[in-house]
């Protein structure tokens, strides 16, 4: 097991380097020039060739790409991601202060989606083809086909602004510090609800379908007949014997869904003005803030690789048949 983990981690490291090389190349080859950006931010509409060259040297931009990458990698190994081209702050600080907001979002979305998907999947499988199965299947398929940004727009305008049930923008109200504890909790929920729902609803649809399909497959197995032959209730058969067997593939699916949820965070965080790394990435891209973009790439890649590894390991712990050499 230890050897397996070591092997996987090594492989993950190689993958990580590959991802950073590609991102490095793509961001630098994309049109736009941080030096120009910096100068124009300075208010000058024109600038001297000398000032421009000095900025490019300052940012290492005059070096060949391979040299730039090697220098970057050398710093990153020491966990130094440099300073933002945009405001000169340390990149690690900029990312660090925004990471919790996004992790809360991803975690909340996964928990929320499972809280809905598991009961829906169980109930659908219990009477496959029945009324509940048909209705739930239809509703979820319809939901699933609505793009996230459309849903976000609808929720912000209708439920957020028009009905004013929830606060669609930001993490908390300006008056948060003055609130009582229950008031603070309510305020967080009011801000959290809409964006988390936007993250979660495609996951609910996907996971419920997945659970239902898997349960139906498992229900046809011989050991389910054995469970019935014992005299167990249909509920015990489904919830204990069948569900336990669908749990394993479910763990993997959830592990793989977290990264895709992170992908959605760029649009959603921007729309909901949620101060997470998705919004930061969006800003950094438009500002050609290479160090921040690269740091976020590394963060995202690490999260993806870790999730996959964790999914595999949990699978191994949950399924006695899986043993790693």
């Amino acid at each position, binding site marked *: 097991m230890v050897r397996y983990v070591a092997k996987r981690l090594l492989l993950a490291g190689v993958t990580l380097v590959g991802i950073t090389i590609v991102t490095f190349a793509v961001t630098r080859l994309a049109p736009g020039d941080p030096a120009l950006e910096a100068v124009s931010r300075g208010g000058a509409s024109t600038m001297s060739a000398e000032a421009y060259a000095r900025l490019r040297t300052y940012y290492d931009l005059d070096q060949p790409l391979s040299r730039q990458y090697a220098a970057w990698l050398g710093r990153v190994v020491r966990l130094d991601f440099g300073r933002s081209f945009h405001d000169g702050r340390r990149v690690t600080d900029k990312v660090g202060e925004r990471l919790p907001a996004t992790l809360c979002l991803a975690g909340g979305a996964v928990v929320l989606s499972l809280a809905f998907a598991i009961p829906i999947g169980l109930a659908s499988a219990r009477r496959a083809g029945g009324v509940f199965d048909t209705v739930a299947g239809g509703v979820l398929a319809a939901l699933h086909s609505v793009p996230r940004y459309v849903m976000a727009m609808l929720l912000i305008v209708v439920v957020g602004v028009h009905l004013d049930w929830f606060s669609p923008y930001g993490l908390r109200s300006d008056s948060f510090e003055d609130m009582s504890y229950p008031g603070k909790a309510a305020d967080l929920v009011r801000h959290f609800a809409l964006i988390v729902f936007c993250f979660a609803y495609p996951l609910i649809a996907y996971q419920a379908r997945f659970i239902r399909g898997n349960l139906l497959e498992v229900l046809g*197995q*011989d*050991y389910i*007949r*054995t*469970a*019935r*032959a*014992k*005299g*167990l*209730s249909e509920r015990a058969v489904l919830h204990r*014997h069948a569900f*336990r*067997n669908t749990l*394993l593939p479910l763990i993997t699916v959830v592990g793989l869904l977290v990264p895709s949820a992170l992908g959605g965070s760029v649009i959603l965080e921007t729309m909901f003005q949620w101060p997470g790394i998705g919004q930061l990435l969006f800003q950094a891209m438009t500002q050609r803030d290479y160090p921040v973009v690269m740091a976020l790439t590394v963060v995202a890649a690490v999260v993806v690789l870790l999730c996959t590894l964790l999914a595999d390991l949990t699978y191994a712990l*949950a*399924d*006695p*048949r899986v043993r790693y050499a």
Partner: protein
Amino acid sequence: MSPNRHSAALAVRDLRVEIRTREGIVRPVDGVSFDIRPGRTLGLAGESGCGKTVSALALMRLLPRGQARISGGSVLWSNGDGESVNLATAAEQEVRRLRGRRLAMIFQDPAAALNPVFTVGEQIAEVSRLHLGLSHGKAMRRAVSLLSRVGIADAARRAREYPHQFSGGMQQRAMLAMALAGEPGILIADEPTTALDVTVQAQIVDLLRGLQSEAGMGMLWVTHDLGVLAQVADEICVMYAGRIVERAGTRELFANPLHPYTQALLACVPRLHRPAGTGGIPGSVPTPAEVPPGCRFHPRCALSRRLAVELDAELCVNTQSGSVLRRCVDEVPALRPVGADHWVACGEVAS
């Protein structure tokens, strides 16, 4: 131990099963009657596809839901104490109370019949917890003692292992321990040794025989192997295409097989002084969707064909499979007594 465990019985009368398939409704079991008597073993024999498993599952009401159902007849369970339940019509809840407790079942493929994600001990303990109300700890200790009872060495350690860590023979032993956990009066075994190695088969046969007489269970032993039934059964029903074609005491059946199908089956059983008939019986069991009219065995029946040669042409009819007796095609032979405790469903033998 329940006081009446030794007098539990199951009386099956005119059992019929319907299965909905894409081609329409079929009846793989069509009017089957037999008795599982207290403390005795009834063998149910027949080739593959003749309806043995469907019959066995019907007794436990374990037919695939929504697809198959008992469409007629009765399955009367009684415990010799005046208590009786018709399993064919009883409410689901009532059936569940008996399943695993009064009637237990073991299956052909123990590897598939055990849940891969629970330990063997947990799966056995589940029965005692459900039916005997034992605590988790007590039920686990009981599982260990059941495992040693079915001949598993080092049972305490083995109980904590998962099914895939067991060999095929041990998996079937574990299934048996699970079946015994409820102290059932009746045990239904569907091809309990078919999936196992030959040497292991003999061990499991011995084990089952020993436990059956020790626990005094009435037993239904389903198999296509008459050789096994010769060792274990008190009485044998021979099944063909969803019906019982012959029923007799084991000794009687082997000494005096009357139905042409039974004779053909016996010709396939290897004996010491005679090699096994090669290739089995010509032809194959009809699927329930295409059972022939009259006697279902007539397309393969050697007797009918022989008589057709000997008798007048007007008594015969030409079929796809040659000339056979007209009666065999026109009339459905009923199971009739031909001697003490010997019944045959063949118009030609009975007359």
